[in-house]
């Protein structure tokens, strides 16, 4: 049998058994007794085959550093018949905001999160921890030694991210350019300030 095809088949069977736990490139290489390069190549082949086959209901994804087999997106509606209840609203807006802040700024204390949001985030943090999306990651060496929070691998999986580097870059509002604008605007303000002051409320 063709060796590269055999490798693809073996990898598929490992991935099938591992299911949602997934397997990392390293684990797959060790289990198949191949190099990571060979495994990568075979996985690429598998993915291409899944995507091109019309009679294939599954495909390959990489979440949280691990490869896993998943059903194709196009069958999501059909899958819902298996589950009936659609798999739910994710979480409240507040929890999502807190999660975003923790994801980008980790490790981070609750107070820092509170400051960014302008509201207390304790409850949302509890929710996120109890859902397994965030975890305590030591304590800040500062007065009160506040708890530091970070995201978990489970967070990556459920949010379809392979690693934290996959987080979309924060939109910085073109800081560079804006800075000069800000300066000019400021200057203009000052010029106009006098005029305005007389008229408006006091």
């Amino acid at each position, binding site marked *: 049998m063709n060796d590269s095809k055999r490798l693809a088949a073996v990898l598929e069977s490992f991935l099938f058994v591992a*299911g949602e736990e997934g397997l990392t490139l390293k684990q797959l290489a060790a289990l198949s007794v191949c190099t990571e390069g060979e495994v990568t190549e075979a996985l690429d082949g598998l993915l291409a085959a899944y995507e091109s086959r019309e009679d294939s209901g599954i495909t390959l994804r990489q979440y949280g550093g691990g490869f896993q087999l998943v059903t194709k997106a196009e069958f999501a509606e059909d899958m819902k018949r298996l589950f009936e209840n659609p798999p739910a609203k994710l979480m409240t807006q507040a929890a999502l905001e807190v*999660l975003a*802040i923790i994801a980008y700024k980790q490790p981070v204390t609750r107070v820092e999160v509170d400051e960014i949001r302008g509201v207390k985030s304790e409850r949302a943090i509890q929710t996120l921890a109890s*859902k397994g999306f965030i975890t305590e990651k030591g304590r800040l060496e500062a007065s009160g030694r506040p708890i530091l929070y970070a995201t978990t691998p489970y967070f990556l999986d459920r*949010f379809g991210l392979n690693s934290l580097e996959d987080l979309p870059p924060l939109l910085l509002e073109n800081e560079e350019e804006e800075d000069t604008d800000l300066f000019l*605007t*400021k200057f203009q303000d000052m010029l106009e300030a006098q005029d305005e002051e007389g008229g408006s409320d006091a």
Partner: protein
Amino acid sequence: MSYNVKLEAFEGPLDLLLHLINRLEIDIYDIPMAELTNQYIEHLHTMRVLQLDELSEYLVLAATLIEIKSKMLLPVHEGDVFDDDGTDFEPEEDPREELIARILEYKQYKEAAVQLKESAEERAVHFTKQPSDMENYGSIPQADPAEELDVFDLVSAFQKMLHRRRLKAPLSASITNNERSVGEKMDEIMGVIVRKGGHCVFDELFEEGDTGGLVVTFLSILELMKRRDVVVRQQGNFDRLLISLAIGGTEG
């Protein structure tokens, strides 16, 4: 009771501020403090039903807004600020600067939250399977569950299970709905026995996997026995049960 009502779902004072900035089409780098402050406070009035602890957070920002507004009303530093060439320009700190920075930072994360949500939604259309039970293959799990694990791994594991169960739970329910009633099943069983020449091994009637179906089948057989449409016999202990059509049913 009215304490709990939220007029609009603002995630806090900064969220409200952002909302106003968008609605009033305010240039975030050139905030007209008087207008924004007025609007903000007006909004607080209509939101007076807020819970007290939330209200205090909104009030803190209101105070900040008023403070900035009043700072801006102070006469600008006299002297060299307005030199024509600007060489001597001494950048007076804009009292709004810190506020702008805070709003921008919050806005960043608010937008990131939207993206995260989208990302999670994209992920949610892909379904996975539980890992296969390795015990079926005779391996003995020896891993120490507490090795380098903390209580949050425990929680994660639990949530993972809940997620899985949540997906799976309706399966049996939806399948059960498709099950035939006892009456239908009785007809079906009679049909099977007839087709098999009047006799049928008990087990053959129980080949379907789900519990609901098995229960219906069992109830149907009991009902058929009660009606004496069928007779169930066993040759000896532990022998297979044999179901036969009752000959010359005694019904009536």
